[in-house]
Every structure is written in C-alpha cells, then in structure tokens.
C-alpha cells in the first residue's frame, strides 16, 4: 500500500502545474483547461484524506466539485464564445479593456 502522503505530493504537483499553466498560457481556452487540472488535483487530495481518516465526506465533496466543474465549463465556454464573436480573438493579452 502506498503511503497517503505520496498522493498528496502528486496532488500538489498537479496543482502547481495548473497554476503555472494559468500564469504562462495566452490562449483563453488553455486557461480554462488548466483550471480543470487544478480542480482534479483537489479531488485527489480529498479522496486521499478520506481513505486516511476513514470518512466519506471528502468523496461527497468530490461529487459537488464535479458538478461545479461542469457548470463552470458550460458558463466559461459560453463566455469565450461571446467574447470571440465580439472581438474575433481568444488571446488574453488582447482582451485588456479593463486594464488599469
């Protein structure tokens, strides 16, 4: 049996990779995909803590995270479509009207 700490290290690694993706990518769809990666890393941590602490509440929360991820993907991609129709671009550096 693998120690549960290894799962936490994997979760942290995926979280950091998603975070780096959000910082460095310029395509707005790639930003959303990196967000999905971060949500998944949280899921791994939830399930690992669950198995360690003999509980199932974390798995219930993973279920809610899946629901919210579906809602987030639908709304986010709808917004991307609306932005694309208006600006004809998906580059985050070009969508900068609110830059102070």
């Amino acid at each position, binding site marked *: 049996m693998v120690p549960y700490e290894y799962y936490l290290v994997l979760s942290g690694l995926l979280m950091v990779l998603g975070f780096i993706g959000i910082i*460095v990518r310029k395509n707005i769809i790639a930003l959303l995909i990196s967000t999905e990666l971060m949500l998944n890393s949280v899921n791994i941590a939830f*399930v690992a803590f669950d198995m360690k602490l003999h509980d199932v*509440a974390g798995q219930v929360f993973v279920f809610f995270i899946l629901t919210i991820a579906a809602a987030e993907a639908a709304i986010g991609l709808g*917004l991307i479509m609306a932005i694309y129709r208006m600006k004809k671009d998906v580059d985050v550096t070009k969508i900068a009207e609110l830059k102070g």
Partner: protein
Amino acid sequence: MDLGVVAFWILSAIAVVSAFGVVFFKNIIYAVLSLISALIAISGLFFNLGAELVGALQILIYAVAIVVFYVLVISTVPEYKGEAVDPKYALLSAPFGFMLFMELAFVSVYGLWKSGTGIFTPQVVQEISNAKAVATMLFTKYLFPFEVASLILLVAMIGAIVLGKKDIVED
C-alpha cells in the same frame, strides 16, 4: 512488490506527464487530448485508492461530458495563431509555483491530520461497499447541498444557452 504500488507509480507518472502536456502544448487539440489522458489516469488513481464511485463519475462526467464541451468550442473558434507561452511570465511562474508547492507541503505536513476520524473504517466499507457508503452520506447529511447542486446545474444550463445565443452582441 504490491500491485497497488506499481499501479500508483505508473498512473501518477502518466498524470504528471499529461499535465506537462496540458500546460506546454502549443496546439490546443493536443492540450485537450493530454487533459483526457490525465483525467483517465486520475480516475485510475481513485480506483487504486478504493473510491470506485468517484472514479466512475470522474470518467463519466469529466472525460466524456466536460471534454466534449471543450472540443465543441475548439471546433468553433479558429486555430490560435500566436505563441502558446508568454515568455514574459514563463520565468516569473517558477518562483510562484514553488511557493505554492511549499505552502501546500507545509499545510499537509503540519496540518491536523488526525482531526475527527470518521466511522467508515475499512471493515465497514468492505461490508457495505464504497458506493453505498458515499450514497448514504449524500442522501442523508448532504441532501440539501445535493439539491442546491442540481439548481446550480439548471442555472448554468440556462446561462450557457443565453450566452451562446447568436444575437447577444447586437442587443
């Protein structure tokens, strides 16, 4: 060597390599394919941990439903011509990523690991199966959040339809 250990190392290696692909592939189609690979590897990790229900839901909802959203939008938006990675921020991301990892490690190592051990010991789960244990909690203690989640999905669906309408710009 235990089979669970072998499965953990193979699946986590696939997940990390796919995550690198998600972050650094220039072509967005390759990034989405890497995302599917990472999601299936993470689902295998859930099975390896003994959470069958969550692993199955991960494949059904993430690797099928959500990825199809992405593929639909990518097929509508034309190919992105610019550079994938902003060189201005590529160097900056390393120290911030390292700081985030250190913070997560600190919380994991010094956190309150043994706070409130639950009642679902391996013997209980062995007897009633993981799916029944999760579903029992979901439909008793977490019934109200479950109903709210369905409401959120309904609102998100209506919002996505309204945002996706063709004449939203002219209004």
